[in-house]
């Protein structure tokens, strides 16, 4: 059981720009000090968001990793759904999936304004 090591690696990556640069430039070297299975190494380097979710990586840790990879929100949600469909339910932890594979619980609002009209920024 090396889920702890997967999460430890991601935790350190998520909070450190230096670790992110190191991982980007030489992923194998960045991962060398972590006791990981081949499945986990592949999931981290691909990156395979669905497999990482299935393995039980804490969702907050995984969400930040997906953001680091510039994975768009709806794509990120779909990758987790695909991971469950392919690999089965989350193996451990409290971040599970309770809805059906077809269910969309966070629909995107379809803009009613012209597409070239800038949206209201969410800031004072």
């Amino acid at each position, binding site marked *: 059981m090396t889920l702890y090591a997967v999460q430890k690696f991601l935790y350190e990556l998520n909070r450190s720009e230096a670790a992110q640069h190191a991982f980007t430039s030489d992923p194998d070297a960045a991962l060398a000090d972590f006791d990981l299975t081949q499945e986990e190494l592949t999931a981290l380097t691909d990156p395979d968001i669905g497999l990482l979710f299935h393995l039980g990586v804490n969702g*907050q*840790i995984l969400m930040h990793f997906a*953001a680091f990879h510039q994975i768009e929100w709806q794509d990120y949600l779909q990758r*987790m759904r695909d991971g469950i469909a392919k690999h089965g339910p989350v193996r451990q932890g*409290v971040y599970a999936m309770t809805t059906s594979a077809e269910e969309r619980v*966070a629909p*995107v*609002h379809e*803009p009613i304004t012209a597409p070239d009209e800038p949206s209201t920024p969410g800031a*004072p």
Partner: protein
Amino acid sequence: MPLVYAGVCSHAPGITGRSDQAEPEVRDAFYDAFDAMRADVEASQPDAIVVIAAEHFANFFMNNMPSFAIGMSDHYDGPIEDPGWLGIDKQRVPGNAELSLRFISEVMKGSDVSYAEEWKFDHGIMVPLHFLTPRYDTPVIPVNINCQGPPLTPIERAWNFGESIRAAADALPERIALVGTGGISHWPATPDSGKINTEWDRDFLDRWARNDRDALLDYDDLGVYAEAGQGGFEIRTFLAVSAAAQGATGTIHFYEPIPIFAVGCTIASYAI
């Protein structure tokens, strides 16, 4: 002097990061409520804002997880997340290490806490500050309750911690504003993101507004997990503010589910 402000707000990253995907009318009403909360905080003229958050592995991991932690630095950097994804640029947020030391010393009289001279902010603190101190010109004292890595902080201890925070704020000469931030029912960072149990939320907020200690402590994690998701564990931050404002009743200034923000968006405060 006595605590000058006690309120709570949501902190979900979609609030800033996915602004353009929300239904504009409800989104703007929520932002207006955040603006009103900022006005209330500013009117309380705080020397520092204590933010009780439920962080998401920006600082604490399962190798050394504190039930309670308080920051003790002259500045804090954040967000750790990609700024484009969160919609908030990297900032250096002012703190006050000397005030933190005195505050923590007082809190420790009633609760066992870890202190941290290093602390990076994630969306859990950056989203509230984006609205409440948009110029980042008020010192912040970050506080964390473990709502992420089981075993979690028992809710009765979170209540006691809120009492300790109130006693500490009252004991210091500075004007301290208290902001709790978390989600109520939600399933963030899962494929269920956007699922919200509004009935559960409204019942919780009713208990919160009445500041009914027994009703607020009448939750257990298994029940919360089933009804309100793993995100519901963050009610600990709301409970701590209730404990800090014991005797005061609250007002729910705003509550609306906004699925693309992945939470029932909430702004509320106590008349302390």
